[in-house]
């Protein structure tokens, strides 16, 4: 797997020609990258909300869940992939599970913090109006927690987009495909490496900006005091 070919010193560092020739492929890999990121974030969000609901109901559960998410966060990505490959093969599932588990720590923490920040009188007013526990969560607590949740989501999204490049070691495509391709062809292709890195960073910046924008639109009352 290790590339032994020494770089061909004639090849320029960046060739627009290559980008033009590979435009379709680039779009396809960008799509794959987004699909992996979105699936991992969605799965992470669903699990985190479930864990947060349990944490808010039973106080003792929160430190346990947090410790579990912290331990998962510590696991190196390559180690996690290696653990799953023998069971799920080189597949989308193998790639998504670790990506999703890495989001749990930040998302769980931010959802719980966000909900805990909801003023007690708001909660009492809703209960007084006859809101059930579930409706209180969905239509009062989660919306009011939104700025903090989105702040967590931004960190999770940017981290995940960077990590998705590693899944190219599982043959998963995404922008990491170009990074790998850059050293796998007989003459290393710096353009592919640079395209992979730059687009991955650009994607992270764009997604981060869109999430920031959505927070502005969805929670306009919280302009001032947002913090992760």
């Amino acid at each position, binding site marked *: 797997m290790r590339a032994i070919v020494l770089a061909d010193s004639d090849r320029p560092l960046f060739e627009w020609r290559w980008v033009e020739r590979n435009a379709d492929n680039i779009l396809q890999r960008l799509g794959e990258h987004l699909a992996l990121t979105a699936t991992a974030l969605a799965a992470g969000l669903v699990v985190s909300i479930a864990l947060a609901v349990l944490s808010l109901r039973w106080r003792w559960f929160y430190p346990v869940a947090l410790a579990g998410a912290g331990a998962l966060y510590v696991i190196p990505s390559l180690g996690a992939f290696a653990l799953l490959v*023998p069971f799920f093969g080189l597949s989308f599932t193998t790639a998504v599970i670790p990506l999703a588990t890495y989001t749990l720590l930040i998302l769980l923490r931010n959802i719980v913090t966000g909900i805990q920040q909801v003023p007690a009188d708001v909660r009492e007013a809703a209960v007084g109006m006859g809101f059930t526990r579930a409706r209180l969560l969905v239509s009062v607590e989660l919306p009011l927690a939104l700025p903090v949740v989105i702040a967590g989501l931004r960190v999770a999204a940017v981290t995940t987009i960077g990590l998705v490049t590693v899944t190219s070691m599982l043959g998963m495509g995404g922008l990491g495909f170009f*990074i790998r391709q850059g050293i796998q062809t007989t003459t290393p292709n710096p353009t592919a490496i640079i395209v992979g890195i730059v687009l991955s960073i650009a994607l992270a910046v764009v997604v981060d900006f869109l999430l920031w924008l959505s927070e502005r639109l969805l929670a306009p009352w919280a302009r001032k005091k947002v913090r992760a």
Partner: protein
Amino acid sequence: MSNIFSEAWDWLGEPNRWSWSDPAGIPYRTVEHLSFSALSLVIAAALTVPTALWLAHYRRGAFLASSLVNIGRAIPSFGLIILFWFLASRWELNTDFWPLLIALVALALPPLFTNTYAGVISVDADAVDAARGTGYTEAQIMFRMELPLALPVILAGARVAFLQLVATVAIGAIVNDGGGLGRYIVDGFAQGRAGYGEILAGGLAVIVLALLCEGAFSLITRFAVPKGLNLENAKQPQTL
């Protein structure tokens, strides 16, 4: 399914697998893994801690401190390793050592810088003024007050950085002869189905190493913090 476990078990029992001096040995690879991670952390700390201390003491570069960690998160470590490997091979440098080292140092910079900066900033301004009033020079304030008081936060940053390093050294195996325990995983991937035992065992080894490092770091944090500084009260900025 069960024969994957027995394959992994058999792999663990192969000759030289527990050797300290043979490249096939898990102890050999563990030492390699840790020394690469530790060397990068030390270099990164030597570069960032004094700089961030100085900048934070004079309240300069706040924007850098807040944006560096986000930039760091967005840069794919995998891409960085391969890019540096490519550049090293083009300039005919040693491709086994420098590319990985430089990529690792670059990755460790943001959390160390941001946390040192945040830690120094959060030192009580009254205490600093009091020290100045009793005749401390600025250098003494920095090294005798701000640095020790910021230590818990700096160590929290070092911990984040080190875990990232341990994870990334493994990825480095893709271009590197070393790559520590990641070597087994990458070699296993190259063999397809026949490599599953090695992949599983190698993956477990990397995970155990990371968890042990995390444990060791929490112990270091407990003992290295100055007496009288309660960790619980230390303000921990966003370090994730």
